[in-house]
């Protein structure tokens, strides 16, 4: 377990670094939204949680990972390239001329599964896939990652009600609870809390954890395949938008941006400091 956690820490730094370079080169991309959920995505793909085959992206028995918060595509693309879904060179031309993918998630990229960017869609698609798996008695799991700001969309609650009532216990929703939206902190906009109560009342089992703790993430994820629950599971993962680069944290103005000019060196330096802090 400790070894795995060390590996995940290293990997998450590598993915952060590559993602940051990709967005800096492109001059665009939602860097802070990606930084808040990278540890979650890294745990799923490198922590022996998801079943997948990069050489066969349409493998029928694969677990589905549906990135409902499609603005975090830089995080997922970097991971997909790293594990071999496509050549890493594609990251160099992210959101640029001749690039195969851009700022928001695109369904025709191997491993991406869906087009996302408009919020409140991927979660419903994930529920549809989970329902299809139940009808066909397929055993794969469906994981979906939502933004907390995405939970303002009414469609999220239409699906939540449906999935809870229909006991889709093959569906695992993870909410990247970074407390920030586009213009302000969520609790300044319209309070999202109490999150657990909301989801529980819609028929979901809830877990709340530190979304940057590999230990906590592994503990919860490693148990999901056992189907000990009859209900769908929502993991409310408390995170920090911009995690790893201090200057980008706790400021809504960094939403949707890539660092430019003087900020490039500042961000690189702070990310390196974050890595060293992790190693200590």
């Amino acid at each position, binding site marked *: 377990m400790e070894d795995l956690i060390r590996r995940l820490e290293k990997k998450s730094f590598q993915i952060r670094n590559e993602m940051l370079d990709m967005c800096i080169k492109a001059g665009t991309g939602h860097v802070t939204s990606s930084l808040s959920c990278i540890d979650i995505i890294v745990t799923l793909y490198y922590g022996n949680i998801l079943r997948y085959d990069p050489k066969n992206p349409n493998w029928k028995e694969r677990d589905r990972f549906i990135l409902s918060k499609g603005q975090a595509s830089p995080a997922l693309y970097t991971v997909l390239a790293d594990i071999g879904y496509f050549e890493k060179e594609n990251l160099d031309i992210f959101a640029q001329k001749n690039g195969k993918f851009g700022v928001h998630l695109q*369904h025709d990229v191997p491993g991406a*599964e*869906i*087009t996302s960017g*408009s919020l*409140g*869609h991927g*979660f*419903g*698609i*994930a*529920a*549809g*896939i*989970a*329902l*299809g*798996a139940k*009808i*066909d008695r*397929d055993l794969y799991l469906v994981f979906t990652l939502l933004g907390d700001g995405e939970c303002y969309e*009414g*469609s999220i609650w*239409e*699906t939540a*009600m*449906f999935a809870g009532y229909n006991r889709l216990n093959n569906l695992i929703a993870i909410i990247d609870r970074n407390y920030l939206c586009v213009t302000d902190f969520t609790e300044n906009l319209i309070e999202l809390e109490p999150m657990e109560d909301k989801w529980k009342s819609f028929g979901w089992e809830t877990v709340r954890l530190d979304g940057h703790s590999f230990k906590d993430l592994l503990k919860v994820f490693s148990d999901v395949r056992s189907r000990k629950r009859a209900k769908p599971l929502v993991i409310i993962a408390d995170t920090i938008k911009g995690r790893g680069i201090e200057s980008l944290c706790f400021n809504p103005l960094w939403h949707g941006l890539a660092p430019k000019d003087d900020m490039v060196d500042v961000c690189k330096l702070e990310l390196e400091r974050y890595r060293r802090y992790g190693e200590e």
Partner: protein
Amino acid sequence: MEKNNKTQRDAFWDRIYEIAKINRDIIIISADMGAPALDKIRRELPSQFINVGIAEQNAITLAAGLTMTGKKVFAYAIAPFITLRCLEQIRVECSIMNLPITIVGVGGGFGYEDSGPTHHIIEDIAILRSMPNIMINNITDIVMARAFADISCSLRQPNYIRLDRQVLPIIYTEENNFDKGLSVIRKGKDFYIISTGCMTSIAKDISEELSKEQKNIGLIDLYTLPINENELIETIKEAKKVITIEEHFLPGGFGSAICEVLMDNNINISVKRIGLSPKIGYSYVYGGRDEIRKHYGTDKASMIKQIKGFLNEY
């Protein structure tokens, strides 16, 4: 000719029921809408029927997910709600992702007559035809409704089945083939009416009536958009004047689509579009569909007057 006492809704779902018994990958998602055939599916094929409640956005996203697992999904509700309430879901999942979901809306045009403008759908053709990949099938009669149940099952793109709510006359026979997207109901020469959906049976009466006055006027029923341009042009290329008829707002609608084809192909034919004027706007007119049509000037008598005036113009 078959005498009709059946709605397009029942014809369509009866056929889907027959197909669903054999093809277990057929799934119907209803946003709390019923039909006798759907009751049979719910009873006999419970795993193939899902009532999501009044939640159209979820209906489309669930349909998308199910489609990704290999299901053939029909998402069904009253037409304005299963198109416009979840329009952005249709845009992303159907148009952008090109998932072959069949959207089934009942109540095209003023089908829900006295229910008022929230239940009328008179903008959907303009809106949905602006989105790539989506085929629109505006159903004329129960024979066509049955045929498009089969066609929808084999489509590899999304489509929108626009059903009328009321019992309408039967135009077609089982031998008709609907692959071309349009059918010549009455062959003409100098003049053609091109109509769609519920307006075709009225247009048929009009063309017959005008023919008695020796206006050699043909009739085309055009039910699939995007328009089969070659077929349309081939049929009307000798015509001098064309009248389009739709129960839909004129801007961007059915008549507009035909004008685009003519202009894009440099075909110089005078066109008179008959439909709903946005200047009149939405209607709170009660007393039946014909009263609403009179309000817009799209009842039979008003249309005959307009067409005669147009044909007599130089």
